[in-house]
């Protein structure tokens, strides 16, 4: 048994959200630079150069990469040998988010109810928390700040088993094509396949968090990732949607066993400002 004060969770969440909103991951920078080498469109290259320049300014001046500093999503893997002390676990997370967004000059982008008043909660809470209990005595915290523009272009559908792999490919490519310039390409395309609707959506979100350059360990699924990336980069959308070759930097597929009757597919689109980070307590 290891005791961890929830105060540590608050501080970790706060520090992570400030850092990810100011500093893009080194893997994304590599992906953008690779895009600059492969992009054939002059306008496309100019957009990639603007993005790289923007990310440099944000990191150097410690300001937000994008004005949409996102909804705050936190994946917690809580070791079963941890005993949490101090205050409420969920409140510690929300307090971390609150302090990051207020003290870090990040935009508050949450409205309290989605249909009626749509009143801004003014501190970017509540956060969206996904908790998993795992063996061990550590707490693994992974956070992402998800912008609305790319989330709005995401989609989910429950296919039939007969539609199979081709049905999945068509749905993913169609979703990216109809999104066009809206989600700020070059994209990270997260794909969840299998499970139930909520499991599938969650898989697609987790897929967007994968480090650029890593692939699904199952060779059939990593092949599917490469094929989908090729198909998407033939669409011609390009950086900023002005036409070009580099529409996506990665397609990441995560899967889970499914019902004998179902083939759920979720496509969670993430913009080039793919902001995520992790820490272990």
């Amino acid at each position, binding site marked *: 048994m290891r005791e961890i004060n929830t105060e540590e969770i608050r501080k970790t969440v706060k520090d992570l959200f400030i850092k990810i909103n100011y500093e893009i991951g080194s893997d994304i920078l590599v992906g953008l630079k690779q895009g600059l080498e492969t992009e054939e469109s002059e306008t496309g290259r100019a957009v990639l150069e603007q993005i790289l*320049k923007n990310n440099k300014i944000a990191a150097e001046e410690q300001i937000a990469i994008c004005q949409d500093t996102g909804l705050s999503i936190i994946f917690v893997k809580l070791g079963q040998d941890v005993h949490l002390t101090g205050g409420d676990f969920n409140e510690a997370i929300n307090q971390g988010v609150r302090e990051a967004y207020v003290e870090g000059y990040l935009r508050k982008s949450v409205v309290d109810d989605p249909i009626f008043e749509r009143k801004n909660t003014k501190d970017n809470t509540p956060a969206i928390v996904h908790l998993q209990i795992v063996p061990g005595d550590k707490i693994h915290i992974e956070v992402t700040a998800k912008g609305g523009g790319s989330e709005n272009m995401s989609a989910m559908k429950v296919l039939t088993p007969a539609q199979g792999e081709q049905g999945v490919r068509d749905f993913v490519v169609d979703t990216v094509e109809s999104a066009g310039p809206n989600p700020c390409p070059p994209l990270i395309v997260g794909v969840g396949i299998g499970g139930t609707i909520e499991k599938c959506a969650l898989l697609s979100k987790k897929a967007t968090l994968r480090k650029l350059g890593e692939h699904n360990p199952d060779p059939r699924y990593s092949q599917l990732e490469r094929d989908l990336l090729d198909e998407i980069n033939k669409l011609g959308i390009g950086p*900023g949607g002005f036409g070009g070759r580099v529409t996506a930097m990665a397609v990441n597929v995560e899967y889970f066993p499914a019902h004998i009757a179902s083939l759920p597919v979720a496509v969670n689109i993430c913009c080039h400002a793919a902001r995520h980070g992790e820490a272990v307590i």
Partner: protein
Amino acid sequence: MSKDYKRITTPLTDEVVSSLKAGDKVLITGDIYTSRDAAHKRFISCINEGKDLPFDIKGEVIFYVGPAPAKPGYVSGSAGPTTSGRMDSLTPPLLDRGLKGMIGKGLRSQEVIESMKKNNAVYFAATGGTAALIAKSIKKMEMIAYEDLGTEAIRKMSVEEFPVTVVIDSEGNNLYAIGPAKYKI
């Protein structure tokens, strides 16, 4: 900035609007107004109730943006374009009242394009996700209306050489259709 850019100043005259073609790179200098989802809904309520809009939109340019808060010493926080399509159904009444330009990112509806042709207006895109860079073009920012909306309030921004691309011109030519068609395999 490169000499490939056309330089324009706001407010926009019909002559300037007509001279801009889809694909042109443009540097905008002058005052522009911020407005997005919530402020657009209020504009339409104003129009429906026969009231004046909070500023005279004749010849003006609206920037679809909800800026991040400014750090001390900064004029504006990061301020890049949001997805314009969400404002589509609320846009033709503004074009009918003299709005000449819009800056955002992403697709527009056929209804908006038709209204742009009818009213001689232009749609520019700024590069989404380059908000820290764009903020460097903002030299002054002033709250104009709907302060209660926070980031969605209407602000007058004085910009210098704000880099944008003409996506849809006043003849309805659309770079989001022309550009990808060249590279689609």
